[in-house]
C-alpha cells in the first residue's frame, strides 16, 4: 500500500512517516543529501542557514534522550529554532488529548513536528490532522515505524558496502515489538538488498512475518551464514515478565551475539545496533566495542540523515533554493 500522505503533488517529501511506499530514488536522494551534510560536522562553523526562521517542535510523548538530541542537533545545524516538548511528563498526563496538544502548538505557528509516540499510527494521525503547512517527521511510533533510524542505518551501510544488491542482512531479536526492524526491512528491500533475514524465537516474531519480504530463522548460528550486515535489536526487560522469554541469560545463550558466533557471518561483516545497548543480553561487549562494530558511526550519522530529512520535508516552502 502506498502512502501518499507523505508526498506532495510533485512527489516530493512532505511528511516522513514510514519508509513503506517511498521509491528507491527518493531514499537515494535522502542518502545523497545526507552525504552533503555529513562533512559539515568537521567544519569550524557547523551551521547552514537552510531553515533559518523556521520553528521545529520536538514532540516526544515517549522518553528518548538520544533520538531527541540528534534531532535537536540536526535542526540547530540547519539554523532552525527548536522547542523540546516532553509530553510524557506534561500535557497528556493532565488529560489533554493528542489532538488538543497539536492544535495548541499549531496556534503558535510552528513549521514542523518531530513526533515520538508509544502508539502505532500516532504520526500518521498527527500528519492527517495538522495544518497543511506543517511537516511531520516520525521519530518512532509504537511498533510501526522509525524511518530516520532506518535511513541512518542505510547511510552507514552504504558508506562501508555501497552495493546493496549484493548484501545479505540479518536482523536479530525482538522483531515483533520493533518499529526499527519494520523500517529497516522496508528500506533494505526498497534499496534492493539480496536478502533480509530475521532471526528470533517465534515469540518475538509477528504473524506472517515473511509477508514483509524476509526469510526467517530461529537459530542464530545457522542464520548468520553468508551475512554481510548484522543488525542487533534491543531487548526490553519487560519481555521476560510478559512470558515471551524465559530469562535474559537463556536469550543471550541462544540469540546473543558473541565473537565466536560473529565468525559464522562473512569475515568482513559489520555489526549494527540502534541503541541503547543491553550488554550481555543481546550483544557481548567485545563485539559491541570490537573492530566490526559500527554502532558509534551510526550515532554520528544520525545527525546528517536527520538534517537531510528535515531539509527535504521543508523544501516545499522554498527553503532549499
Amino acid at each position: 500500500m502506498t502512502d501518499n500522505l507523505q508526498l506532495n503533488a510533485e512527489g516530493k517529501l512532505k511528511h516522513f512517516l514510514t519508509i513503506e511506499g517511498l521509491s528507491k530514488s527518493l531514499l537515494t536522494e535522502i542518502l545523497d543529501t545526507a552525504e552533503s551534510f555529513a562533512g559539515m560536522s568537521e567544519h569550524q562553523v557547523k551551521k547552514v542557514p537552510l531553515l533559518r526562521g523556521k520553528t521545529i517542535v520536538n514532540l516526544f510523548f515517549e522518553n528518548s534522550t538520544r533520538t531527541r538530541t540528534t534531532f535537536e542537533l540536526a535542526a540547530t545545524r540547519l539554523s532552525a529554532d527548536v522547542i523540546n516538548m516532553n509530553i510524557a511528563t506534561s500535557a497528556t498526563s493532565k488529560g489533554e488529548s493528542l489532538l488538543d496538544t497539536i492544535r495548541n502548538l499549531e496556534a503558535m505557528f510552528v513549521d514542523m513536528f518531530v513526533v515520538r509516540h508509544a502508539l502505532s499510527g500516532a504520526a500518521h494521525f498527527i500528519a492527517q490532522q495538522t495544518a497543511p503547512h506543517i511537516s511531520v517527521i516520525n521519530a518512532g511510533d509504537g511498533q510501526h515505524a522509525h524511518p530516520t533510524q532506518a535511513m541512518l542505518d542505510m547511510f552507514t551501510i552504504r558508506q562501508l558496502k555501497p552495493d546493496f544488491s549484493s548484501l545479505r542482512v540479518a536482523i536479530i531479536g525482538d522483531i515483533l515489538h520493533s518499529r526499527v526492524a519494520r523500517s529497516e526491512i522496508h528500506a533494505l528491500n526498497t534499496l534492493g538488498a539480496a536478502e533480509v533475514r530475521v532471526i528470533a524465537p517465534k515469540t518475538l516474531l509477528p504473524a506472517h512475518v515473511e509477508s514483509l519480504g524476509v526469510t526467517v530463522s530461529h537459530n542464530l548460528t545457522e542464520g548468520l551464514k553468508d551475512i554481510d550486515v548484522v543488525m542487533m535489536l534491543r531487548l526490553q526487560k519487560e519481555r521476560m515478565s510478559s512470558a515471551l522469554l524465559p530469562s535474559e541469560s537463556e536469550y543471550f545463550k541462544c540469540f546473543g551475539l558473541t565473537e565466536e558466533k560473529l565468525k559464522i557471518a562473512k569475515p568482513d561483516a559489520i555489526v549494527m545496533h540502534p541503541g541503547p545497548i543491553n550488554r550481555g543480553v543481546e550483544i557481548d561487549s567485545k563485539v559491541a566495542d570490537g573492530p566490526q562494530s559500527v554502532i558509534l558511526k551510526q550515532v554520528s550519522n544520525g545527525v546528517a540523515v536527520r538534517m537531510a530529512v528535515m531539509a527535504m520535508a521543508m523544501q516545499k516552502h522554498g527553503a532549499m533554493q
Partner: protein
Amino acid sequence: MSRIRIDHGRVIDPANNIDRVGPVYIEGGKIVSVIDELPGFKPDTVINAENQVVCPGFIDLSTRLRDMGHSRKATFKSEVIAAAAAGITTLCLQPDTAPVIDTPAVAELIKDLAEKADYPQIYAVGALTQKLEGMELSSMLSLKQAGCIAVGNANQPVKNLLILRRAMEYAASHDLLMMFRPNDFWLSNNGCAHEGVVATRYGLPSTPEAAETIALAQCLELAELTGCRVHFGQLSCKRSVIKIHQAKKYGLKVSADVAIHQLHLTEDDMTPFDSAYHVMPPLRTEADKQYLRKGLSASTLNSICSDHQPHDLDAKLGAFPETEPGMSSMETLLPLMLKLVKEDVITLEQGIACLSANPARVLRLKSGALTPGFSADVCIFDPELDWQVNSENWKSQGINTPFWGQTLKGRVTHTLQAGKIIHRL
C-alpha cells in the same frame, strides 16, 4: 385504530413462504391479511409499494444505543430514528450500557427510555454477571421479569470456566437465552487488529482467530454440559463457522449471527490507521469473509446483525490503538444485505429471513413474519434506489462508518411498527 392497505408490493415473508405481488392489510396494529384480497376493507391509509419489497420489519440482535452515561455518543432518541429509517422494528440492546444492565432497576430504566423513545421495540439483554465483571452471577430471574429478553456478558470476559458454567446452568434453569460473543480475554491480548499481514505491517497489537475459536469451543462444551440455550454473536472467522456447523450437526441447540460488516470488509480494506475500520472482533482475512458468506448461505449462521455502535467524533480521533472500536451501522444494514444478494451469496428471501424470521426464532418472539394476527411490523424498501451516505441522509448520531460518502443501493421507504408508520422516506 387506523386501517392500512399496502398495495402492489412484492411481498416477501420467508416464515410463511410467500413471495408474490399482492396487498397487505393492517388493522388495529395487527396484520389482517396478506395477498388474499379483503373486498370490504376500507383503509384510511393506502401505501403504494409498486416496484418495492414488502417484508417483515427487521430484528437486530446486537446494538448499542448509548444514552445515559454515553449520551455524548448517541441517545435513544437519535438512534430509534436511525433504526426506523433502517427498517428495524425490534432490537436487542447489549448490557454494556452505563450503568450496566445488571439490576431490575436499570432494566426498568431502559424500558422507560425505550417507551419514551416510542419505537421500535427495544429489548434489553441483561448482564450475565454483576457489573459484567465476570465474577458473580447477576439476578437473572429478576432481570427476566423486568423485561430482559436474554442474558450475556457483552464484550467482557467471564473470570473462569466454572463461573461461566454456573451462569449457564442458572440461565438454563430460568429458560433464559445466553447471548455470547466468544473471545478469550488473555489470547486477545488487547489487540486492536487481526493477527495477520496487515497488523504485522503496521505494527498494531493484534488478536488471533484462536481468541474467538477457543472461547467458542469451550462455550459449546458448556452448552452441552448445562443445557443452556446459546446464541453466538458477531462471529468473525472461518474456523468459528466450521465449529458451529459441527455443533449443529451433533445436535446442539445453538445459533449464531454475523455482523454485516464482516461479510463485506477485510483487513486489506483498512486504509492505514483509519479508525473507521477499528472494530471488535477485528476485520479478518478474505478467506474468513468468504467462509462467513458460505456459512450464511448454508444457514450455519442464521442471522445478520448490525452490531451498531455509534461513537462521538473524539472516540475515533487518535492513534489507531487508542480509538474506540465499533461502527455506526444500522442504516447500512439493508443495502449491504442487498449487496450479498446481488453478489449471489444468498437469495433475497434468505437475506430477509436473516433479518427477520430467523432472529425472531432465536429470541422466541411472535414476530419477524407477516402472519395474520401478528403485530404489524413491516418494512417496505426500494431495492434499486441509490442513496449517498452523507449528513443529509444519515440519521444516527454516530457517523463512524467506513461507508461515509459512498453511494449504496437499496433504501427503506416505509417502516411500520404495530401498524403505525414510524418512518416514511
